[in-house]
């Protein structure tokens, strides 16, 4: 699996990521690093415990990283969740969106995992 195929699998925009980071080395490096970032775990924990400010920050961080990595699908759902949480909403709608984020994250993680294994990482 190439980096490009990995981007296709996680519903991202490889060209855009190249535009932001300007080198394939950097894109690959941070794609591989993405799964190590603790923000998603933090989001899950704080959604469970109902810690709205923490959940907002975690979603916000995921959104920021996804924007720079051009992980388009996850960027979209995490942005929407961020805006809901910013308003203090932890209700059904937020939970629903959170499920979307989880699904998108799982898909992203799966693609990166596959790429990582083939890249020998």
């Amino acid at each position, binding site marked *: 699996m190439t980096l490009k195929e990995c981007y296709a699998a996680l519903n991202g925009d490889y060209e855009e990521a190249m*535009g932001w980071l300007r080198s394939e080395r*950097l894109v690959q*490096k*941070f794609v591989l690093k993405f799964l*190590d970032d603790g*923000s998603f775990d933090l989001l899950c924990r704080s959604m469970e415990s109902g810690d709205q400010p923490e959940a907002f*920050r975690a979603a916000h*961080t995921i959104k920021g990283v996804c924007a*720079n990595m051009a992980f388009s699908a996850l960027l979209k759902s995490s942005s929407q969740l961020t805006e809901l949480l910013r308003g203090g909403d932890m209700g059904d709608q937020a939970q629903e969106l959170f499920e979307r984020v989880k699904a998108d994250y799982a898909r992203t993680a799966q693609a990166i995992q596959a790429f990582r294994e083939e890249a020998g990482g």
Partner: protein
Amino acid sequence: MEKITDRQKILIVDDSEMNRAILADMLDGEFDIIEAENGEEGVAMLQKHGPEISLVLLDIVMPVMDGFGVLTQMNKYRWIEDIPVIMISAERGSSHIERAFELGITDFISRPFDALIVHRRVVNTILLYAKQKRLTAMVAEQIYEKEQRSSLMIDILSHCVEFRNGESGMHVRNVHILTETLLNALLRKTDRYHISQADISVISTASALHDIGKIAIPEEILNKPGKFTPEEFAIMKTHSMVGAEMLENLPSYQNEPLVSFAYQICRWHHERWDGRGYPDGLAGDEIPISAQIVAMADVYDALTSERVYKPPFSHEQAVNMIVGGECGQFNPLMLECLEECADEIRQELAAGGEQRRSQRDIQNMARELHRHKELTASERSLELLEHERMKYSFFASLTKEIQFEYTISPPALVLNSWGSEKLDLPEALLDPYQHPEALSIINKDVQSKLADALHSTTPGSPVVQCDCKLTIKGEERWHRIVARASWSSEEPPRYTGCIGKAMDIHNSRLQLENLERQASHDSLTGLVNRAYAKKRIIERLEDRPAGRYAMAILDLDYFKSANDTYGHMFGDEVLKFLAERMRHSIRGGDIAARVGGDEFLIFLEYKDDLEGAIEGIYSRVSGGVYKDFAISVSMGVASTQEAGCDYDSLFRCADQALYVVKHSGEKGHYNYYHKENAIDTATSAVSPIDAESKEESE
């Protein structure tokens, strides 16, 4: 030991490790990166590394303390003045950005960010701050040096007074420290006295002069160990007024703040709040604040110092005595200050104030610089510069010249407004060589000639001049361009461009051309005159001596009778008619000239067939009639082959050949000069007047 490093330190404050890693990666290799994962850690890093940090990259949304919290702290500790902050955030609301700029950030980069932009902005910001820091330091250094010198002189002077006074030498120093400390305390308390940081520095310096009038008090009174008699006290009391008068009588410097503060201090440092002091009995805030402060400092130091007649009192005792009114009444506000800064006073006096003071002076100066209050010198230079520019543009607008300045890097042409209007070009033109309208004004050859000439000047003689045609709004006009090359001051000097002007010389040029034409042409026939023909012929002969040339001298037969019969006007017409025929019978490179009277000359170059060429010319020139007058021409011809390759020989021989025709009794034909037939050199067909003018022209 401290780590020595040339690399600039950048602090990245962001809660996402991933984000920090991306940013660090973008800047790695050029900078030392330190990281903090929330605002509080960031502030701790700033505290720890201080001004070693060249730049902060700051996120907004973070746990514990967010980006705005960090900025608030940076403002509180004034770090924001020295350390630039670039904020990076996915927050797009303009209120966020506005608030961040209000809190002093230098730049804002939205997320997602572009690696190149982040890198470029970081580098630019660091360069900008480094430059500003260097400049501030340079100016502060200069001001500080100047102030240091004047305080040194004042200290020496006041120590002389003190020495005569038998005092320890510490009094002046202590009064200085106390004045400064009390003024700072007062400034913190109220702004009703309108004292600036700069004033504090000047007043503290001037405080050293408070007792300068004592120099006029007789030594026996000054150093009397016991109590003063009322008469002695009266004399002693004159020192404040005497000091003030000494300053007032200074021949210059009356407008110096230092002198006016010193005057207030000398005269009124023995006045008291309740009006019971001397010499003027001023009360309350009638007493200038500078004098009030120094009065208190003077009393405090006298109380806490040892004197022959008393032991030193402690700080508390002294404060109690002052507050209790034992040394006269003081401004209640200042009594508060004295009580409040008791600790500070003790520390400052113990430390001698020196070190800390000079550091604070520099800080104050730097602060003043930020507010542009101390920049009067450079402001004045700027004003002068502005004035010069105004003068220049005024005169430039009067001269009606095109004035220009060209720089190579960046390639730009700047025109004065008159020139810009005249040429129909903008006043500033980037890359003029890419601008077709600019290029169309000046011919390409002239352009490169001018550029070559400028490039080959030297810094010692950089001016070039050239006359050329400029096409302005479709009209070609002669201009004189005078330009001065600019050379850089480095070794070897580099050509950097030029300044210059172009003056319209079209009319004078035309006049000149006209004059030249008049000087070289015969006004009646329009042919060139003999002198000019001679010049041209000599040029031709010298240019190509190997060529074959011939000269024909023509004479209009029976011209005298035409004049006599029909009048001179008619004679002129006949001459014009013949000249016109000559013009049409020669080829491009040949020369036809009027020698004088009814004699003409033709100079031609031939290849093989001279006879054919001469026959052709003769047949077109001679024969036929003008009105009723028959045109008959006699002609003598000499070739360089026969006569020699110089003008005089050609002329002489053609003249001889003509002479032969004229005297043959059979006019109206032509004759060649041949060496073997040469006759007496004195004989000439050309009339004496012409011969004379020939002499003159030689």
